[in-house]
């Protein structure tokens, strides 16, 4: 919308030509100028410029809808509002499952099962709607090379033996999961920008990025000056494009993050702690960091990133071998504990 050319904003041809002489070609350039600058550039009187401003604004302003219309639209299609995770207590807490149309973050210490969880959700997304899936393809952006196709088939065959009873069905499922290996921030961002066409072409119903943290933390060292701002910039850009895609196509977008131990002596990292829900060492029964007084344990990528995601799921070890996801959400705020045994182990 911002890059909309002024020609399409229904300004007259000569006005557009005159403005292009000052390098003002898009709505964004036009709206960033003050009234006096616009008067100088367009050569019009004050009132005329105000009328032009209204015209250009109307070309890029969003459409209005009342809350009632939004509710009606949602109630028309209730089943497509969530992707059920098939873990009943988790689904109950999430009011149905992973929400469609917003960003969900899964964060945990290493080895807790984030990638396994993502693989399971990919299988679930390809199932038909009658079995609780989304009946669509999956885009999986892998930055750690942790995705294993064999594991995918193992999970599918073990969880849904009745459905995946033939090799053919398994192959069909694997064909609808599109894996992209991106190893740098730049390529991840480029991939995110090009997702829109892929989603329409391949009828994608789920986007997973595993993991955002590993590629960002590899490239941006926050101790160096200037890197913090660049990192925030990159994350915000990625987040806004992903939000647009999630809302536009009403699909869930899942991102994984890491846990970082913020040593209490470091100034920059300590400020990552913005809410007690982020300080995982506060939660009872946590044995993630053996020495409690050595520092804070929190989700990585800083508080700017925390503002961008809509829902945050934290997986933790309660005591081996069961895993215990703690749910903290930015939207529906209740800290609840859900115990679940890892469904991916053969037991």
């Amino acid at each position: 919308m911002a890059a909309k050319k002024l020609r399409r904003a229904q300004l007259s041809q000569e006005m557009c030509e005159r403005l292009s002489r000052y390098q003002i070609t898009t709505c964004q350039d036009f709206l960033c100028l003050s009234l006096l600058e616009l008067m100088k550039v367009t050569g019009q009187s004050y009132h005329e410029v105000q009328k032009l401003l209204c015209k250009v604004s109307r070309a890029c302003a969003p459409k209005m809808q009342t809350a009632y219309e939004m509710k009606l639209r949602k109630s028309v299609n209730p089943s497509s509002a969530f992707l059920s995770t098939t873990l009943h207590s988790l689904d109950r807490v999430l009011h149905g499952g992973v929400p469609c149309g917003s960003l969900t973050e899964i964060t945990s210490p290493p080895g807790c099962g984030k990638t396994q969880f993502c693989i399971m959700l990919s299988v679930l997304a390809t199932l038909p709607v009658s079995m609780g899936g989304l009946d669509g393809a999956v885009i999986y952006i892998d930055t750690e090379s942790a995705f294993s196709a064999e594991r995918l088939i193992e999970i599918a065959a073990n969880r849904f033996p009745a459905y995946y009873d033939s090799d053919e069905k398994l192959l069909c499922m694997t064909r609808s999961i599109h894996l992209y290996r991106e190893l740098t921030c730049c390529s991840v961002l480029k991939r995110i920008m090009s997702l829109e066409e892929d989603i329409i072409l391949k009828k994608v119903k789920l986007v997973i990025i595993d993991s955002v943290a590993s590629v960002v933390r590899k490239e941006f060292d926050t101790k160096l000056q200037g890197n913090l701002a660049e990192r925030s910039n990159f994350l915000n850009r990625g987040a806004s494009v992903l939000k647009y895609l999630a809302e536009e196509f009403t699909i869930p977008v899942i991102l994984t993050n890491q846990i970082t131990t913020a040593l209490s002596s470091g100034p920059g990292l300590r400020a990552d702690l913005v809410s007690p829900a982020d300080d995982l060492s506060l939660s009872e029964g946590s044995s993630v960091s053996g020495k409690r007084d050595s520092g804070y344990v929190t989700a990585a990528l800083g508080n700017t990133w925390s503002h961008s995601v809509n829902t945050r799921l934290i997986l933790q070890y309660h005591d081996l071998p069961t895993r215990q996801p703690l749910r903290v959400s930015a939207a529906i705020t209740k800290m609840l504990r859900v115990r679940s045994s890892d469904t991916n182990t053969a037991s």
Partner: protein
Amino acid sequence: MQREVGTLPLAPALRARLAAAGFQTAQELLDTGPCGLSKEIGISREEALEALQVVRQECHGDTARAAGGSGATRKCTALELLEEEQTQGFIITFCSALDNILGGGVQLTKITEICGAPGVGKTQLCMQLAVDVQIPECFGGVAGEAVFIDTEGSFMVDRVVDIAAACVQHCHLIAEAQPEEDHGKALETFSVENILSHIYCFRCRDYTELLAQVYLLPEFLAEHSKVRLVVIDGIAFPFRHDFEDLALRTRLLNGLAQQLIITANEHRAAVVLTNQMTTRIGQSQSTLVPALGESWGHAATVRLIFHWDNTQRLATLYKSPSQKESTIAYEITVQFHHCWLHVLMETRCHSIFCRF
């Protein structure tokens, strides 16, 4: 009539020509007439006529203003202002402690800014206010409508439905406890569907759409004259990425703030903005401060900061022209923000402004 030519809202090229030809006051222009003007400065007769009409309108506006009529600049005595302020309504938040520290609730014609970390309850409060602004006057509300501009995508219709249902139920309880004749009539139209239909939502995905929407706001409010609340949820989000030119950002934000103040005053609406928190890294320690920089702090009249203390949510009134700085504790329940005046909190507050 003695107004200088350079101050008239004409096109700059025209003004330059008039100055070059030697015209100095508006009266000279009016005396010359369109034909004379067109011959002297070399423009067509139609253009000259247009220019003279603008000049005449301006001068007419000037004399009207000088005579004390309504115009862009208003003057009134402090007594008149006091009377206006006392009859003005507040938008209550259904959290009595929060209403107390605000002096009654969110004030109309002022900009209130809510800053806080993610997950602390800013969007919840905004959705609450969008419902509370519609409470009928006989229950103590302002009976208005709400505009909700969402830049982060955090507006949840299901939550608004919950809040609206709780609000309607609350009003029903009041009507039963203290029945008055207006109550019945008001409750007929105060239903969940009605409440939802009067919340006008706009989803702005970047700062250009936000700027465009704020430019179009006066027109929209003129059409929907009952709007008493404008919420911009997430004024920080669109300005925090893709902005290398910080000077441009400051200028755009200041322009936005000015327009919002004008809109708030002209339409007697409350403007509520939510802001993010950012980390300011100092030499020895780092602190959480509201985002968008120091100069943005001047834009809002009232500033509320929501933060945590262990697992308790707190709200601090950080900046206000009329109330004292104080902190209260609150909770978010299924129905709405529920305040509990924890005994500890009472001793920590500087003063609890008691007004019931």
